């Protein structure tokens, strides 16, 4: 039986060659995979230990304390549960401000992104030679974290929603610009050529030829960005840019005694994020044609 099974192997050296080559390839692949795995695990472990040693409180002490603060907040909120709805109403205007910052920056950023993306898409660009310039502009504005611009503008313009709005809009223009120009690249050139043949200028070609094709995808990306920007504007509030983040910082640094306010803001923020998350994913699915 065994002889019979081995038979064709001996008869056909080509088959054996292939099998050996395959086995060797598998071994090298496994070895590389193993090496990558070992390096990765070593990086994670040493990184964790380094981060642990440079942290003010260690990981193992902290993990035991992790429920103390939420516990304090919850117990104080439970003690003053009747006040919570009132507090939520009190902080609602700041919540609106946070949402306004996000909406305004998404709108401004998206409008800038539309212009930048049209100017940096091959085939559509008004000035084809300047495509790399506009691309680098988008790269840079995408790379700047919002907090950098926000902090500098807060120094000049004072605390308030405008620095946050400008900061987020700047970043949004780069992030959306890149996504928009990817969408533009897939647009059909036929309507644009048709418009060109009847003498339409660049603005008309873009407005009537490109935008109707790409608007649904643009909108879908902009909605996703809006969701991200709500989170960003809440965070920027914490460093002094107004909105609900600023109230959270005040209530939080006050400490015990105002944790009912912290709880109210946590709830408001959570509900807002979940609401806009659901809303945007619903409309995104509708726009891109998924069910």
């Amino acid at each position: 039986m065994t002889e019979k099974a081995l038979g064709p192997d001996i008869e056909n050296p080509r088959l054996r060659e292939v099998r050996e080559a395959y086995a060797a390839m598998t071994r090298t692949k496994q070895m590389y995979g193993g090496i990558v795995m070992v390096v990765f695990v070593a990086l994670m472990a040493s990184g964790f230990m380094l981060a642990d040693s440079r942290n003010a409180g260690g990981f193992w002490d902290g993990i035991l304390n992790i429920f103390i603060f939420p516990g304090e907040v919850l117990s104080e909120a439970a003690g003053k549960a009747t006040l919570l709805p009132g507090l939520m109403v009190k902080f609602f205007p700041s919540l609106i401000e946070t949402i306004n910052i996000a909406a305004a920056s998404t709108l401004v950023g998206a409008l800038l992104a539309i212009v930048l993306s049209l100017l940096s898409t091959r085939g559509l660009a008004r000035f084809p030679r300047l495509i790399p310039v506009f691309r680098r502009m988008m790269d840079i504005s995408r790379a700047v974290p919002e907090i950098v611009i926000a902090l500098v503008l807060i120094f000049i313009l004072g605390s308030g929603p405008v620095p946050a709005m400008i900061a987020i809009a700047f970043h949004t223009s780069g992030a959306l610009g890149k996504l928009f120009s990817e969408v533009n690249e897939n647009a059909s050139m036929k309507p644009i050529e048709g418009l060109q043949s009847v003498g339409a200028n660049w603005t008309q070609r873009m407005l009537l030829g490109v935008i109707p094709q790409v608007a649904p995808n643009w909108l879908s990306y902009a909605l996703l960005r809006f969701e991200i920007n709500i989170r960003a504007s809440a965070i920027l509030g914490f460093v002094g840019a107004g909105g609900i983040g600023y109230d959270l910082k005040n209530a939080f640094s006050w400490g015990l005694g105002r944790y009912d306010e912290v709880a109210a803001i946590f709830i408001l923020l959570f509900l807002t994020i979940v609401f806009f998350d659901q809303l945007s994913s619903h409309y995104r699915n509708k726009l891109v044609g998924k069910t």
Partner: protein
Amino acid sequence: MTAIADIPAQSDWKDTATARITRKRLIAFSAPLVILTYFVYLFFAFDISGLAGRARMDNAAVLVADSYSYKTHVTHDNRRGDLSIAIEGENKGTYPDGMTPDFVTLTGESTARIALTAGESAKIDGATLRYSVPGYGTVTVTVEGRKISLVTPDDTVPDWISSSSSRVTITGKGGRASVTRARTEVFRYSYGWELFWFTLDSPFYGKSPVELLGLALSGDRVVADKSNFAAMVDGVWNNAMWRHKDVLWAIFETILMAFLGTMGAAIIALPLAFLAARNFSPFIAVRFGFRRLFDFVRGVDGLIWTIILSRAFGPGPLTGALAILLTDTGSFGKMFSEALENVDDKQIEGIQSTGAKPLQRYRFGVIPQITPVLLSQVLYYLESNTRSATIIGAITGGGIGLLLTQAIITQKDWEEVSYYIVLIILMVMLMDWISGMLRRKLIKG
């Protein structure tokens, strides 16, 4: 017969087409109108008109000027009577005895001549300051006991000099001077980031790149116990003015936060995603539970996680890493489980037919299918989390975000702020480039 049947249908089309065009026209006009109305509302909600009044353009001017220039303070202490020269007036930037910048000439124990730009010059002679402006003359300010006397050539005080009983400030075109009872100070502005490489106490200060290269290659030791090259590296690395060591550590901490957070989240989310995917998790309750868990973790948002965790773990990179980890576990869990629901069953069945156990089925039937999606998401998040880590660092206190907020709060080290901003942008672009390169290599090849 077909023609007759078609006629009402065609008129139907015409109606729908007209209706659609009307609707599109309506949208085309109303959408910009709605946006415009919203901006008008924002104009009042954000109080844009009041903004001009609150804006501190003088702050902006200081910020811009400071980011590309520095000032040297020449100070005479009117009480102790000694003279000192310091860059930005900082202790760390004080010129040691016997060393002066080329625009200052020391003529005695407490007398100095300072050549300013735009033809102006100043002379400190003990408690007397003589500030010469071409075409105007010499302004003399003297501190006598508790009194400060100001003498101008035409006996009137021009608008670029502000004078009170306790302070006289001269703002010339080529420099500034301020005299109080305690000290007489002259400021001279120069371009560049002074002391960026070597501080004044370093033997390599003020040498040109060519000289430095020559020194690095030569065997004559400037510092006794080190080779010249090692001494130079040491001088730059431990620069007290710009703190390159701390800054690079901070950048590294920020990247570490992003790396640990993203990878940790991916490792935790992968097994959980199997439990939340429709085709792998047989129990609806488990599936539902994990989905809601992902939604919850995502909905609570990085800001709240950061606050909760910073209470337990204190400031530092670990707190930031854990905050990123928690938030992204939710996002990854959701995305991975969606990817798992889209896998092709045929490959799994093929592996099953060879008698593979469940774990082997997952390893060889499922993982290879979702790896590209998984990797590209993880790498994309790694880049985006480098930016988040900067912000989280500013809140919890760790990494470059902390240094940036500290430098901005002092409101004077704007050259350091611009240095950090440049480094942050380079860091994010580097991570963007690495993640893009890895994505192309790992997913295509």
